[in-house]
């Protein structure tokens, strides 16, 4: 009775139409295996559909099965080996492509890296050049400044000649009496030994009275060897001695390098 109801429900018609879910399909198959009358009913429904679809058909293609036989041959003969080969080939090709890509990426990365380095180097060079220009300009300005000071009409030039300890030494004092400044041109002095420095003295001659004008500090790094010092003394002569670093209270006359008298 239960089976008759199952058959009458219409589920078998849906089964033949393919309108059921996979789970429902399995359920129908389960019944069909267990109950021959279900199986028979399914075949009858399919039979009716075969008749209907045949009656509504315009027949088979004129070429019939022969029309597709060759295509089936292709499938049988070539498909497995061809597909296998294709898979392997594609796999190798895939790996090869990956490798090439990886190598390519590495190369591009390196190339990029070296370009970056080159840019950095160029950037550094550019900065260096800019720095040099700035330095050159500042040097020109310094030089012009010095030149202007030397040309000032209030400047008295005093030539200092070499003395016993260093006969070849010489120096010049440009004394601007208007602003009470001296520029010492010490180009003719040797570099002082470590721990020593040159000291400039203003001298009164009668009686001989030395007064310290200042130190030629940082002598080695002053490329122009031009030093600016204040001088408010009524100088009659200028002398330069070598003194221990920091200078001395009074000049060490044994180390008098240059000496010159202010002209009338």
């Amino acid at each position, binding site marked *: 009775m239960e089976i008759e109801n199952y058959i009458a429900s*219409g589920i078998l018609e*849906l*089964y033949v139409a393919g309108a059921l879910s996979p789970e429902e399909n399995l359920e129908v198959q389960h019944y069909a295996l267990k109950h021959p009358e279900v199986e028979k009913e399914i075949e009858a429904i*399919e039979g009716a*559909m075969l008749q209907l679809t045949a009656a509504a058909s315009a027949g088979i293609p004129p070429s019939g099965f022969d029309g597709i036989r060759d295509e089936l041959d292709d499938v049988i003969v070539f498909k497995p080996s061809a597909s296998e080969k294709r898979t392997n080939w594609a796999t190798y090709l895939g790996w090869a492509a990956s490798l090439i890509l990886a190598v390519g990426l590495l190369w591009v990365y390196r190339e990029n890296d070296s370009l970056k380095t080159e840019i950095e180097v160029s950037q550094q060079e550019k900065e260096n050049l800019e720095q040099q220009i700035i330095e050159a300009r500042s040097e020109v300005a310094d030089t012009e400044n010095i030149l202007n000071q030397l040309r000032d009409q209030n400047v008295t030039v005093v030539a200092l000649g070499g003395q016993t300890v260093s006969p070849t030494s010489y120096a010049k004092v440009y004394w601007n009496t208007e602003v009470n400044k001296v520029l010492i041109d010490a180009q003719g002095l040797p570099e002082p030994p470590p721990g020593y420095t040159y000291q400039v003295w203003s001298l009164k001659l009668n009686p001989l009275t030395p007064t310290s004008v200042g130190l030629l500090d940082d002598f080695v790094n002053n490329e122009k060897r031009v030093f600016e010092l204040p001088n408010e003394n009524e100088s009659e002569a200028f002398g330069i001695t070598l003194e221990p670093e920091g200078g001395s209270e009074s000049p060490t006359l044994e180390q008098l390098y240059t000496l010159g008298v202010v002209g009338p």
Partner: protein
Amino acid sequence: MQLDTLILQFQKKDKSAFEKLYGMYAENICGVINTIVKDPERAQEICQDVFVKIWDKSDTYDTSKGRFFTWILNIARNAAIDELRSKAHKNKKKNLHMDSFVGILAYGDDLNSQMDTIGLKTLLNGLKEKCLLLIDLLYYKGFTQKEAAEELDTPIGTIKTRIRACISNIRKNMAPSDGN
């Protein structure tokens, strides 16, 4: 059973078994395709392609997918519906429901002289239009029970009982010698 054996051999790529299956189902399958695409020449091409596809996919069939006929019917109507879509007939889909299968009944004589119109009319004798629509949706369009219920705005249970009644009606119209 003989059909089961035939299918097993077909799945082992036995061409002569497949030729027998072709002989058993080609008329039905080609008919279903033509009913959907309504272009006899194109339908024949698609039909041959479908059988090649069935051959190619033979290893994917198992009984959990239902009857062998149901399986190949599904492949056929999918191919036919793809054809319709590729022809941009999508927008006319609703109309197509109405006139594909039902239309063949009404205009069968004009559409194709080879069609067994008398046989068809005999089979469908006494069937109401809603039966024809339901057969069209479920068997020719591959609608699920739920989709058919939505399409026809009918309770889902009614679909089952109605298709049972419709197919039973056809079975009664079948000549006694054709019955199983």
